[in-house]
C-alpha cells in the first residue's frame, strides 16, 4: 500500500540505532573487560574478555535473595497496576459529577517529586505496619497515572455500539470490562505491564529508605557494593547493571507482539 521507497527509513533507523547502541555497547564491553574507561585512546574492541565479573557479582551480593525480592515486589506492582488502572481508566470514560476534579487530582498527583515525599511516605507506611515487607515496597507503585490515561484512551477507542449491545444483553459492568474492553486493549495492557515492571524493578530510593533488614533488599540496592571506595570494581559494576537490566528487557521482547496485534485486528473480530 505504501509506494514510498524503503531505504531512507532504514538509513534513518540505522543511524538512530547506532546512537542508541554506542553507550550501551560500552557498558557491555566494560562488563566483560573491566578496563579503565578513562584510558586514552578509548579502545573500541575489548581486551582480555572474560565473563567472570558476572560470577563476582553473583557472589558479591546475595543475588538470588535480592532477585526474589525484586521479582515479588514487581509482580505485586504489575498485577495491581493492571487491575487498578483498568478500573480507573474505565471509570474515566464515563461522565459523572466529580470527573473533572478527579482528572485534575490525577494530573496534580503526577507532579509530586518523589524525593520530597520520602519522610511522610515512610511514616505512613510505618503507620500501616507494612515496613520491611513486599507489600510495603510495592504499594507506592501499585497504580500509575500515565497508565490510567493510556487505558482511558484505549477504552475511548472501543466503538460505542459494542458496549451498548453488551449492556442490552444485561451484562454486569465488570463482565463488560473483562470480556469486551480488555481483549480490545491488549496494547494498553502490554504497555502497562512493561512500564510498571521497569519502574518497580529499577526503583532505588524507596527500597533504600524502606528496608532495614538485609534480606528484604531489592536488586538495585546491591549497587552500593560496587561503588565502594576501597577497591576497583569497574567490571563488576557494569556486569551488575547488565544483570539488573536483563529481566526488563526480556519482558519487553516477550510483550512486543501485543503491540502489533493491538487494536488493528481486535476491532473487526468484536
Amino acid at each position, binding site marked *: 500500500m505504501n509506494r514510498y521507497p524503503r531505504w531512507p527509513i532504514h538509513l534513518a533507523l540505522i543511524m538512530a540505532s547506532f546512537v542508541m547502541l554506542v553507550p550501551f555497547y560500552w557498558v557491555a564491553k566494560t562488563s566483560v573487560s573491566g578496563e*579503565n*574507561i*578513562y*584510558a*586514552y585512546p578509548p579502545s573500541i574492541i575489548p581486551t582480555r574478555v572474560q565473563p567472570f565479573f558476572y560470577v563476582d557479582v553473583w557472589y558479591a551480593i546475595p543475588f538470588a535473595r535480592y532477585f526474589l525480592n525484586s521479582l515479588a515486589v514487581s509482580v505485586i506492582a504489575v498485577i495491581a497496576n493492571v487491575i487498578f488502572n483498568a478500573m480507573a481508566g474505565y471509570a474515566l470514560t464515563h461522565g459523572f459529577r466529580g470527573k473533572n476534579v478527579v482528572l485534575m487530582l490525577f494530573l496534580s498527583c503526577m507532579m509530586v517529586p518523589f524525593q520530597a515525599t*520520602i*519522610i*511522610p511516605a*515512610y*511514616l*505512613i507506611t*510505618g*503507620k500501616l*505496619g507494612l*515496613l520491611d515487607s513486599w507489600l510495603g515496597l510495592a504499594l507506592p507503585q501499585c497504580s500509575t497515572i500515565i497508565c490510567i490515561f493510556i487505558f482511558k484512551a484505549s477504552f475511548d477507542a472501543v466503538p460505542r455500539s459494542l458496549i451498548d449491545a453488551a449492556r442490552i444483553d444485561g451484562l454486569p459492568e465488570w463482565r463488560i470490562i473483562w470480556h469486551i474492553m480488555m481483549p480490545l486493549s491488549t496494547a494498553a495492557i502490554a504497555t502497562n505491564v512493561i512500564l510498571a515492571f521497569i519502574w518497580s524493578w529499577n526503583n532505588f*530510593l524507596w527500597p*533504600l*529508605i524502606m528496608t*532495614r*533488614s*538485609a534480606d528484604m533488599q531489592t536488586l538495585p540496592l546491591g*549497587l*552500593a*557494593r560496587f*561503588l*565502594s*571506595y*576501597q*577497591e*576497583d570494581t*569497574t567490571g563488576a559494576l557494569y556486569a551488575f547493571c547488565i544483570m539488573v537490566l536483563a529481566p526488563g528487557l526480556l519482558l519487553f521482547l516477550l510483550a512486543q507482539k501485543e503491540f502489533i496485534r493491538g487494536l488493528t485486528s481486535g476491532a473487526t473480530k468484536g
Partner: protein
Amino acid sequence: MKRRSIMKGALAGAAALAAPAYLRAQSSKKLSVLTWNIADQEELFKKEFAEFKAANPGVEIEWLDKKGPDLPAFYQTQIVAGTPPDVVDIQGALWVDYAANGGLVDLTPYLQKEPDVAKRFNQDYLGGWVYQGKTYLLPFYVAKTLLYYNKTMYRDADIAQPPQSFDELIAFSNKMAKGEKTGFLTLNFDWLYWPLFKMNGVELLSPDGKKAAFNTPQMADALGKLAKATADGGINKIAWTGRWVEPNGAFASGTVGMLHAHSASYFFVKGQGPWINEQTLGATQLPGFWSTPTNHGFAISKGSRNPDLAWSFLKHMTSDKSAGNLFRERRVLTANIEADKAGLEAIEKTDPLAGAVLRTQTEHTDKLTGNWPLPYDAELKDAFWPEIQNAVLGRKEPKKAMADAERAVDRILRRKA
C-alpha cells in the same frame, strides 16, 4: 491564635504518625549499627559482632550499611520515625550538625569515667570530633590528604623531587602538561582542596567564626594562578568537577602528573593502573605539610534506648584488637596508636608502597586543616565551593568570585549567629 492551634494540631498528627507502636516494642537488648559504605568488611564484622555477643549474652546486633550520599537520607528518616540506629558511622563534618541539634550522645562523661579509652587514640585525630568542648565520636578509621606523583612523568619533565611550595606545584604541573597529559589533580569533596589555600596563608573564617576571612589578596592571587594553570592544561579540569571515580580513574590512566587525595585513593588507583609500582609512583606530603582529614567515626544516636550498651560496643569496635583487624583487612589508618604501629610495620614488609602511603597518614597530624567543627558546614560548603569553581574554570574574576562567596557566607553566618 486559631491558625496556630491548627498548625500545632497538624504537626501533633505528624508526630503521632512518627512512632509506629510495633517498632517500639522490640526487645530492649537490640543494638542496630549503621555503617557508611563498608559492606566489603562483612566477614570481619561478623567475627567482631560474634565476639561482642559472646561478651554480652542476650544482645542482638542489626547491621545496616548505606552508600555515602544515601546514608543521611536513611538516617534522618529513621530519626523522624523515632527509630534511629543506636550506633552510626559518620564521615566528614556531618556529625557537627547532628550534635548541635542534640541528636548525638555526648561521650565526654564516658571518656572521663574510663580515661584509658581516650589514651588509645592519636589525640589530633580524636580532637577533630570535639564540639563546644564535648567529644561526640570515637575514631573508626581515618585518612588525610597526601600528594601522589607519577615518577615516570617527573623524569620525562626532568623534575628532581616533589614541590616544596605552591608556586613550585603550579610550575611542575604546567611543565608536565603536554597533549592529553596534565600536571595536577585534586579531590574536592569535604574541603579536601583546602590545603592549596592554607599553604598561601588563607583562613576560611575569622577566629571567632562570626565572619568570612578568606577574601584576601593572597586568596585572589592563588585563585588566579590556579585558574591560569587550569586554562593552560597544567591542572586537569576534573580536579574541579570530578568527585571520586573520575579523578582516580584519570590518574590511574597514567596521564596525570600529581594527585592530591587521601590514602583510600591508592587502592582504587592501584586496581585500575597496572603501571603502578614502587618505581613509578611516589607518595609525599603537600608543601607546608598541610592536609585535610576525611575521617570516619562512631557516634551514638540520642534516640538510642541503651546508650551504655552502645558505648561498650564502641569500645569493642575501636579496641586495639578490632582496630588491628580493620587495619590488616582494609589497609586503612584507625587512629588507634597500637594498631596503626603494628599494622604499618607489617604492611611495610609485604607491600612497601602501600606502607609508604599509609605512613604519610601518621605524619604531621598537627597540621590538619579544613576540619572546622561548624554545625552549618554543609551550607557553608554549598555557598563557598561553587564560587571556587566559577573562579578556577574562568567564569568569574577571582576577586569578584570571592566577593560573592564572602557575601553568601556572611549571610549564612548572620542567620546562624
